[in-house]
């Protein structure tokens, strides 16, 4: 089976939270006030008509301003979200780090969380057992592994999450914005690990505002702006265009 993933005309709409009754109490009040039906349904296209094709083994960055739909795109890739329109085709097993604290439970120990997290990713217990030492060794958290997760610093939690995510043997690895909280030494270690995984032929989708890291890892980049595709191409070119547009915006602001 060839791995990889493709988006074809994918759009994701979120309906804005305040336009709907959130509780029965709300619902009842609205029915009394007879306004339930007249509220406008405000909606927002977080991802708008996005099409691209990532082949197996490629390393692709997604860049863009805050709120441009990067995390939403990754969630569509993992099937956590389903597209409002279009189709997402994912070929292969997906593992990923979506923002911080990848599905940990604060009351459980690091050890229990490794098992919980592994099972959430669909691993069998013996698979986790086999990888356990490797996971702990990579995270360098041997001394804290039986401590409850709520006593971890955010960097420590990230270390554990990253170590689990890269040990899953996925075909596609999604990394969203997580390296930022690691200390420099660990960041370097992570980037090395990602390089290593790249060599194994794993497809990687990398989201980061650290453009140097993006430059060093990826051959290709996709630039999103307010949910739309601005550019898709060779990493250096896309980053240059993105940075140029950001500077332009900055100048506009200064003129105003």
């Amino acid at each position: 089976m060839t791995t990889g993933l493709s988006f074809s005309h994918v759009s994701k709409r979120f309906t804005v939270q305040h336009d709907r009754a959130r509780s029965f109490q709300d619902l009842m009040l609205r029915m009394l006030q007879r306004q339930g039906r007249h509220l406008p349904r405000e909606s927002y296209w977080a991802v708008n008509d996005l099409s691209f094709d990532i082949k197996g083994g490629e390393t692709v960055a997604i860049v863009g301003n805050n709120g441009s739909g990067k995390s939403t795109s990754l969630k569509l890739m993992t099937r956590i979200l389903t597209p409002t329109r279009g189709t997402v085709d994912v070929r292969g097993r997906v593992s990923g780090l979506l923002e911080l604290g990848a599905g940990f439970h604060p009351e459980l120990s690091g050890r229990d969380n490794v098992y919980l997290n592994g099972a959430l990713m669909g691993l069998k217990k013996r698979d986790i057992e086999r990888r356990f030492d490797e996971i702990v060794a990579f995270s360098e958290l041997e001394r804290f592994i039986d401590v409850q997760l709520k006593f971890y610093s955010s960097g420590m939690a990230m270390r554990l999450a990253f170590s689990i995510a890269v040990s899953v043997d996925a075909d596609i690895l999604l990394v969203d914005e997580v390296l930022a909280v690691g200390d420099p030494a660990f960041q370097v270690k992570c980037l090395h690990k990602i390089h290593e995984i790249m060599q194994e032929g794993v497809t990687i989708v990398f989201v980061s505002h650290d453009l140097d890291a993006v430059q060093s890892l990826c051959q290709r980049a996709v630039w999103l702006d307010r949910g739309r595709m601005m550019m898709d191409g060779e990493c250096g070119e896309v980053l240059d265009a993105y940075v140029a547009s950001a500077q332009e915006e900055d100048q506009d602001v200064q003129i105003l």
Partner: protein
Amino acid sequence: MLTRIREVYAYRELLGILVMRDLKLRYKNSVLGFLWSLVNPMLLMLVFTIVFTVMIPNLSVPKFPVFVMCGVLPWNFFSTAVTSSILSVSHNGHLIKKVYFPLEVLPLSTVLANFVNFCLAFIVLFGMILVFGVPITPAVSLLPVVMLIHLMFTVGISLLLSTLNVFYRDTGVIMEVLLQAWFFLTPVFYPMEMLPEWAHIAGLLLPVRRLLYMLNPMASIVASYRSILYGSTVGTAAHIPAWDFTLRTALTSAAFLAFGLWVFGRFRQRFAEEV
């Protein structure tokens, strides 16, 4: 729906870990904690025994404390499992937003963790049955079947309500009231035979007893437990309920389970954006 069930089955280890997580968090890992789950039914037993044999002896129903426990334990399992699973989806947003997995395991694991407790409580109930000298008959072999029917119904309701709570966050508050009413409409503290067969309600002649059995699956479930563990209030020993009664109860529970799975499956895709 079959693909959903298959996917849940593929994640059965996750289910196991989540059940263990629930139990661990409740008992904080201790062995004593595990025994802790016996304390609650034991206290109940003590209270009922004292209240109903010493303070207000109920003479119309023989061995009333056993009679009550046969209804209270199943009801308590149902109501605590439902109450805690209502929040099982909406409180696990941190998981749902980060990893893809079949979300059915969330209410399912909550119910199962409570089911483990329920099973342990039977130790107390059987102790009580021995102490009171209620004869144990072969009918008790039907217990696993009744428990399975009970479990199916509880899971069905939990799937429905946990879905509802994602969209309407006060489902729990409303259910608290409804469960109270439901409790009184279930023959936990009174024998079904106490209800009149027919009664005039709002000018209509209604078959009250039949209606209650039909509209309230918990009534049939409690009646089944009682029939195989306690017998009847007029003193017949424990016996297997009529097969068509058991079949009807089983089909009702299966229907609720199927409906719950269907509703959950239909709205599941929106959970990650709503929680």
